[in-house]
Every structure is written in C-alpha cells, then in structure tokens.
C-alpha cells in the first residue's frame, strides 16, 4: 500500500503519480490521506489500480476514470465519476449533484444519498445508489442503468433516451416522456448483478422500472407542450 499525503504533496503530484502507473504496475494499492475536500482528485486514471481516499472530496473526484477502482471513505462533491469510461468508483457517504454525469461505462456506487441530477446525460455507466436521489436525475439519460434503492425526487428521467431507471421506493414525479415500464426477467437479472456488485441487500423484485416513452424522439407539433 502506497500512502500519499495530499495536503503535503499537492494535487498535481498526486494525479501525475497516479497517471504514471502503467497497466502492470506493482504499486496497485494507493491510499490518499488529507483530501480535505480538494477538487479533481484521482481524475483521468487509466490503469487497474485501487485508490482509497480517506476523507471527503470536492468536485469531480474520479472524473473520466478508466479501469481504476476509487473508493472515497467520506462524501463526494459535485460531478463525482463524471464521464467515467470503465472501472469503479465507490462513495461510502453521500454524493453531491451531477454524480456520474455523462458516464460512458463502469460502475458508480453511492452508499449514502445522491443529490440532484444524478446520472444526468449518462451514456452507458451503471449507477447504484443505496439511498435516495434528488430532482432531475437521469435527465437526458442515454444508456446504462440507474438503480435507486431509496426514493427518487421530482422529474425523474426527464427527456431520457434508452437508459434503464430502477427505483425501489417512491418517485415524486416523472419527467417529460418518462414512464413506468414492464419489468421483464432480463431486468431482474441486470438488477441482481448490479446490486450484488454494489453490495446492496435489496431484492430485485422490489424495484419498478422506468424509461423513455419515446414520444419525443422525433419532433411532432402535437407534443409541443412537452418541449
């Protein structure tokens, strides 16, 4: 285990050191101490290393991650794991707004609650939130799976495309062109695998699925009120 004191050595040194780790590095386990809410911690990683951040982080922790596993032992600021391509980001506490925004792949696990716009414009990422999510989550979500073990706020899935949204608790309201969908066996299977990987004991059968009604996919003047 390599220990990196962020307060003593600085952000540039941290990210450049992590970027230097190549595919077959021997230094696969890293611990970052004294993050103190710093922004852009462990961004742009591109190797299968494990980074544990002992404390809370600021904006964009784990941004554009590829291959790495990043764990925040604390809460995460806005845009955590934004545009993630692969790998895994785990937040032990809560996550602020835009968690997993535009992510293309990988798994984001939030063990607490996530704020508004969780999974906004997601493009293939899987997100599992153990708690609740805020309003406008999965706005314009394109693909991937958003799993919410608690409740969802207002306007869930507004203007979403082909992303699958699973919510166990209540949904305060659905956004434009988002509707409840049939839960089929393949969806139960997806949930089963994601919940297991996210270390959640929720049962797949307890969830409802939401997704695009596909009424706004091509402009129609009769839907003008929804635009």
């Amino acid at each position, binding site marked *: 285990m390599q220990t990196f004191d962020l307060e003593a050595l600085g*952000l*540039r040194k941290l*990210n*450049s050191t992590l*970027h230097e780790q190549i595919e077959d590095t021997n230094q696969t386990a890293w611990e970052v101490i004294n993050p103190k809410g710093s*922004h*852009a911690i462990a*961004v*742009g990683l*591109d190797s299968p290393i494990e980074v544990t951040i002992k404390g809370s982080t*600021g*904006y*964009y922790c784990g*941004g*554009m991650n*590829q291959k790495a596993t990043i764990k925040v032992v604390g809460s995460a600021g*806005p*845009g955590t794991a*934004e*545009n993630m*391509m692969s790998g895994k980001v785990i937040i032990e506490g809560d996550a602020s707004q*835009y968690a997993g*925004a*535009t992510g*293309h792949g990988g798994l984001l696990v939030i063990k607490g609650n996530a704020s508004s*716009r969780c999974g*906004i*414009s997601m*493009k*293939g990422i899987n997100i599992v939130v153990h708690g609740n999510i805020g309003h406008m989550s999965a*706005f*314009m979500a*394109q*693909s991937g799976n958003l799993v919410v073990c608690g409740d969802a706020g207002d306007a869930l899935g507004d*203007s979403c*495309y*082909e992303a699958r949204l699973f919510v166990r608790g209540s949904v305060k309201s659905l956004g434009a062109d988002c509707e409840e969908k049939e839960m089929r066996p393949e969806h139960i299977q997806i949930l089963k695998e994601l919940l297991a990987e996210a270390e959640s004991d929720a049962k797949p059968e307890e969830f409802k699925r939401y997704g695009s009604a596909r009424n706004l*996919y*091509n*402009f129609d*003047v009769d839907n*003008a009120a929804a635009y």
Partner: protein
Amino acid sequence: MSSHDENGIPHTTPRQSATFTSDVNSDIRRAAATGIYDIRGGGAKRKVPNFDDLLFMGASISRYPLEGYREKCETSVTIGGLHASNPIELDIPITIAGMSFGALSGPAKEALGRGASAAGTSTTTGDGGMTPEERGHSSKLVYQYLPSRYGMNPDDLRKADAIEIVVGQGAKPGGGGMLLGQKISDRVAEMRNLPKGIDQRSACRHPDWTGPDDLEIKILELREITGWRVPIYVKVAGARPYYDVTLAVKAGADAVVLDGMQGGTAATQDVFIEHVGQPTLAIIRPAVQALQDLGMHRKVQLILSGGIRSGADVAKAMALGADAVAIGSAALIALGDNDPKWETEYNKLGTTAGAYDDWHEGKDPAGITTQDPELMKRFDPIEGGRRLRNYLKVMTLEAQTIARACGKNHMHNLEPEDLVALTMEAAAMARVPLSGTDWWPGKPGTGY
C-alpha cells in the same frame, strides 16, 4: 391589371407592406402549414454593421509603409502560453472553427484537416467527438468540450492539441443544438451513443457545472487529466462580451473564442439565429477592453469568429485587438458548399446557390453537410483540402498586404488607430472615428 374600375375611377397603385413583406408572409404560410418553427443552418442573414463598414487609412507622411513582397510581415501566433506547457503555434492567424462530424461528412472533416494543416493552422472538432479522419489529417486539432459530451473520452482528450470548452455559439447564445433524425447514420448514432434516426438534442448548458466558479474547477480537472500540457480555450457567444471574457479569464482560460451572430450553426431555429446575439463588430472592443482591464491582453489570446470572409476582415479584427480569427461558413464555401455548379439541384430543393441553408436535412448537393453515402461521393477530400489551403493562403496574403500598407511588420501590430468607420453605428461599435472626423459616438470626453 386594369388601371380604372368599371366607373372609370382610377385604382390606387398596389402597395406591398413594409411590415408584411413577401418573406414575412412566406414564413407565416410555412408556419401555418407545418406547425413547426423554421430550422436552418448558417448564421444571421440580416444586414448588421460589419467589417465592411470600416476602412484602413494606410500609410502617409506620419507612417511609412513596408515594401510588398520584400519586407517581412509576420503572421504567426502562439495560443495558450499562459498555463500550458505545449501552446499552439500557428503560422497564420486564421483557424478553422468547430464543426461536428454528423453535421459534416467524414470526408468534409478530413478536407478541413488537410487544408488547415497545409496552411499551418488548426482545425476544431464539434459536437459528436473526434474522428480518426480529422485527427489523422490535422497537424493541430482543437477538441471541443461541449454540453452534450457526445463522444467525449479521455483518450481523445489526451490526443488533442488544445481543448475548447464551449459555453456558447454566436448563432444561438443560450441555445443547444439539434441534429435531426435524417442525418443520424449508423456511425453518427454509434459515436453519440443514441438510437439511429431520432432527433439528437444537444444540451444548452453543461451537465456538471454552472457559473464561473464551477468553470474554474472544471478547467482544473481538464488540466489535471491532460497534465497541464495543452491550452484550454473557452468559447462564448457574443452575448455579454465584457463580462463573459472577464469571467473566462478569471476561471483560468488560456484563450477566449468569441463568436458573433453571423457565425454559423449546423441547425437551429431561424428565429434564434436572427434575433439573439450581437454582431461580430459590436463584441470585439468590449472583449478587448476586458482583457486590457485585467492586464491580460496578448497574454490570454482572443480568437474572433462570426462572418469572417477575407483578409480584410482578418486585418480589421486584429486591428481591433483580436489575436486570431476563426472561420466556419467561409471554409465550407471554400470546400464547395453552395457552389453554383449544383444550381439545378438547389432549385429542386426549392432554393438557389448561395441561399441553401437546410443543412440539417442531409440533402446537400455538394456532399458536405450530409451523411448520405451517394451525395458524399461527390466530395473529394483531397481537392477540398487543396481549395481550403488556397483560400487560407489568399486571406493571409490579403491581410499582409493591408498590414504592410499600414507600416506593420507583424499582423499583431495593427491597431484601432489604423481604422476609420463609414457609418455612425460602426464607429460606435468599433470605437474608431467616423471617416473625416476625430469622433465616434460614446468617445470618452465628448459628452455623447
């Protein structure tokens, strides 16, 4: 038409309304027939004060000219030296603006790369990601970071020579984009991670930041991902140039791209293009003022775009304080867009060469703004690249000609004092004297 009625009383001459013109009436009829606003490509077509309203005075007894073809007039420009370890070095101060693969065909993007590289300048990606064609043929490629993040990934980010965070576009300040379903081929759909054939909306603001304080952190993140190697530009529309430039610089931009309302778009509402934003001529001086007030003029580069057509426009933009310009619509025309040789086909589409702007429909007879394989075959990227190179060279020679005539051995030495305006409006916007006077509206100390 008879001139008198049946009682011998003369008719009044039929009079068309200046309010309900034939253009307006056709817009109303089209709206009534379709129920949808008019969507089109390009920039503002209305007449606005522009660079044609300015003139250079040239040299005289007080200033002597440089000898054309003999005495050097430098055109190089360095962009992004403030924070980036690898700033962009351009041979000419004319860059190619961002245009997406999707809006343009793959061969058209290749041609832009070929032409720009041959002329020693950069080209820019667009909404839809980076294609191998343009990366492979662009010696200097600026990678746009857009609200939609279509195709955005860290590997391409690290292949870029610069990153341009797009906040706004001159044709539609405050607006997103729309690529209609007919242009969503399999390849475009795959790059954007969306189903084929659906209308693809591009968001009007970024999904993970709002406001200048967030932008500063976003720039930090992008610098950390790319190791502080490449410049980061911020592109803003000509909305509130003084404040937008101030905030972009405060957020840490290496360069600001400022786009006036004549700047083109692939597709948006006509009402947006014609009624939102400010003319390019009006936005440059407030932007330069912002840089000067911050002590950052020439340290943070200003790249002006929106209706730049000729070397004269380049020289005028630079005289008013820009470090470089960007061209989009003009580059497409150089490639062959709206060429009269396709007139018969333009007529079939209900338009004429020079006026064709339904780029979003994907039926471009010139094979440039389309994803139709048959139409794309009409466009030769090698020939297109050669034409663009020629055009860029001509623009540069024209700008040098003017600069030499003003006694400047570098384009950056052009200054507002070299210019006069032909109209009151242009004088007020450019803050240069009305021709024949030493005055412009709003000149400090004049009481007007």
